[in-house]
């Protein structure tokens, strides 16, 4: 908890420095003033002789390393500093060799992988190598089928255990999922993938245009907007049943569904009255209630993920779209952005921040870059997170609040990228076709 608090405080400090916020380029630096844990993760060893071992070990070791590296809370000790002999079990650990330079690590994750028949067994340990008398922080054993999918899942589980122990008790995100829109089949369909870009697969095959996937907090249902025969309607896909389930049709243009944090309500944009407005309804589609009433586009609502008491959304009521907030009953409307073209708000899990996409200097002669920004709701101070060109849009928070996923055209067509919530460690996750509107699962 201590680490997470310091991390949050560091970000808050940054946001409260107005002079910094006025600059175009800042490297905020995760956990400023906090030493990252130096973690060594030697490759796991084979505990049995099996022809499949090398292949599964490679999948396991790559996945575990990426998960821990992606977490953003470790100083990963480079493998070139490791002793020649790496441990596969507690008896092999030479504490001095890991705790002193060159590795100079404080934590060591190690273990082994064995195959017997169709099953794989993984043993993993986390050692505090500077505490020789009582070094063990974690000891885990996993069993599953000897497939690369199963081995990847085991690596995610073990990584999440380590992140949970060393990351202030915040659950890791290695088993979380990303939902997004891909055109690679020729139509814009809803797709899913693991948080690291693995296992990309299509969920819908509607052959129309499907947009804005939003996963329910419990991960059982996915709401999205799709062009049906005569209008845009909110559709519902069940991940438990692996198929579409029925949902009421409202008529007009119905867009951008958003789940409340308890999963009982959905907010969305509908033009059923002839002008697009924000509506709230039960997650069954019943008790439809209109909460905005102002001419012009009103779209992309999101609930405060901590309280569900407020909704942020995008309104064109004053010209170019801006981010606004209101109470969930439509009262107390506040404008958050004061210039440019601001869209696609996403509320942080702790309720303190919004990330959104902003063309800040909009107009003739302005560079017109569209970047991801983070704003502290209370102070309205903001920091720019992307600087690398292209159109950056549709940010979405990871369950732990440490990561942001978004779409970017910086490499040509639109693709999905992740970064830490301070803008560092930007990585591309998709390559095939055009991939947009990522939405991160709630856990």
């Amino acid at each position, binding site marked *: 908890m201590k680490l997470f608090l310091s991390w949050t405080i560091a970000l808050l400090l940054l946001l409260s420095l107005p002079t910094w916020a006025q600059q175009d380029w800042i490297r905020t630096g995760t956990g400023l003033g906090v030493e990252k844990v130096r973690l060594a993760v030697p490759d796991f060893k084979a505990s049995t002789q099996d022809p499949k071992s090398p292949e599964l070990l490679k999948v396991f070791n790559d996945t575990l390393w990426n998960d821990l590296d992606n977490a953003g809370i470790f100083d990963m000790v480079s493998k070139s500093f490791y002793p020649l002999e790496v441990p596969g079990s507690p008896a092999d650990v030479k504490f001095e060799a890991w705790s002193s330079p060159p590795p100079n690590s404080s934590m060591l994750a190690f273990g082994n992988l064995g195959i017997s028949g169709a099953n794989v067994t993984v043993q993993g340990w986390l050692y505090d190598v500077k505490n020789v008398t009582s070094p063990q922080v974690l000891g885990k054993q996993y069993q599953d089928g000897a497939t690369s999918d199963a081995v990847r899942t085991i690596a995610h589980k073990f990584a999440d255990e380590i992140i949970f122990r060393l990351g202030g008790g915040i659950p890791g995100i290695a088993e979380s999922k990303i939902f997004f829109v891909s055109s690679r089949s020729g139509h*814009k369909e809803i797709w899913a993938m693991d948080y690291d870009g693995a296992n990309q697969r299509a969920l819908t095959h509607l052959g129309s*245009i499907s*947009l*804005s996937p939003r996963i329910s907090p419990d991960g059982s249902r996915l709401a999205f907007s799709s*062009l049906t025969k*005569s*209008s*845009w309607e909110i559709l519902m896909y069940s991940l438990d049943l692996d198929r579409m389930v029925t949902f009421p049709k409202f008529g*007009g*243009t119905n*867009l*951008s569904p958003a789940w409340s944090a308890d999963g009982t309500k959905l907010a969305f*944009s509908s*033009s059923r009255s*002839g*002008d*697009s407005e924000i509506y709230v309804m039960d997650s069954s589609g019943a008790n439809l209630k209109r909460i905005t009433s102002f001419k*012009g*586009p*009103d*779209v*992309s609502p999101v609930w405060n993920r901590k309280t569900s008491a407020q909704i942020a959304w*995008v309104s*064109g009521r004053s*010209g*170019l*779209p801006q981010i606004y907030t209101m109470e969930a009953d439509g009262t107390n409307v506040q404008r958050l952005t004061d210039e440019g*073209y601001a*869209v*696609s708000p996403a509320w942080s899990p702790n309720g303190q921040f919004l990330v959104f*996409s902003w063309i800040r200097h909009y107009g003739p002669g302005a560079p017109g870059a569209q970047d991801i920004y983070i704003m502290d709701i209370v102070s309205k101070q903001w920091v720019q997170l992307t600087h690398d060109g292209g159109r950056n*849009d*549709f940010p979405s928070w990871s369950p732990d609040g440490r990561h942001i996923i978004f779409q970017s055209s910086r490499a040509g067509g639109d693709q999905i990228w992740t970064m830490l919530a301070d803008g560092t460690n930007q990585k591309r996750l998709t390559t095939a076709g055009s991939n*947009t*509107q990522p939405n991160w699962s709630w856990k």
Partner: protein
Amino acid sequence: MKQRRLKWIMLVFALSAIMTLGACKKKVAPPPPPPPPPPAAPTASLSASPNTVDKGGSTTLTWQTTNATDISIDGIGAVQPNGSQQVTPADSTTYHLTAKGPGGTQEATARVTVNAPAPPPTPQASATEEELFSQTVKDIFFEYDKFDVRPDQQAALQGDIDFLKQHASVRFTIEGHCDERGSTEYNLALGDNRANGVKNALVQGGVSADRIKTISYGKEKPFCTQSTEECWQQNRRGHFVYQK
């Protein structure tokens, strides 16, 4: 005031003049009295029913004569003084009857029109309405990020209203489109505002709302894909689509 009264007086005068003249004319031209009939002059009449047939169809000729001894129809030959006969003319024909008698000769004619097999006219008519729609009805173009109909589009809008009021049976969809700039969700909402903006303007102009459907395509179905202002303008529009 004076002028107006003068106008009225002139109008009343003119009207009564016309009526009087009309009445006079009737009196001036009474039906001519029948000439004194010469003894035993033949009479003849010939009719065809129906007098218009499609190609290959038949019609019935009917004739009556009096005081005639020698009666013939061209193309048929000698016939009875009174009678009827079915004929199937290949082309439009004028049947000619001659009735000769001691008192002289009388002629009568009947015209039968044969219609050439015309191409079926009905489907062409409805295609024409759709063609007229696509030729006449103009799309409405918008400023960036705007959804109100701008002044330079009012003429196009009025032309659309005029056409749609003249063709009251035409049903249609207005598609709202946006250029590639900006965000997917916002552009769909904006496109919806554009489509509804055009619809409202048409309804205000007297076009019935229940003939109009609207849909937004945002930036999902652009008319062109270059990143130029010319192309962007092409994509910022309310597009009319005829509904079959």
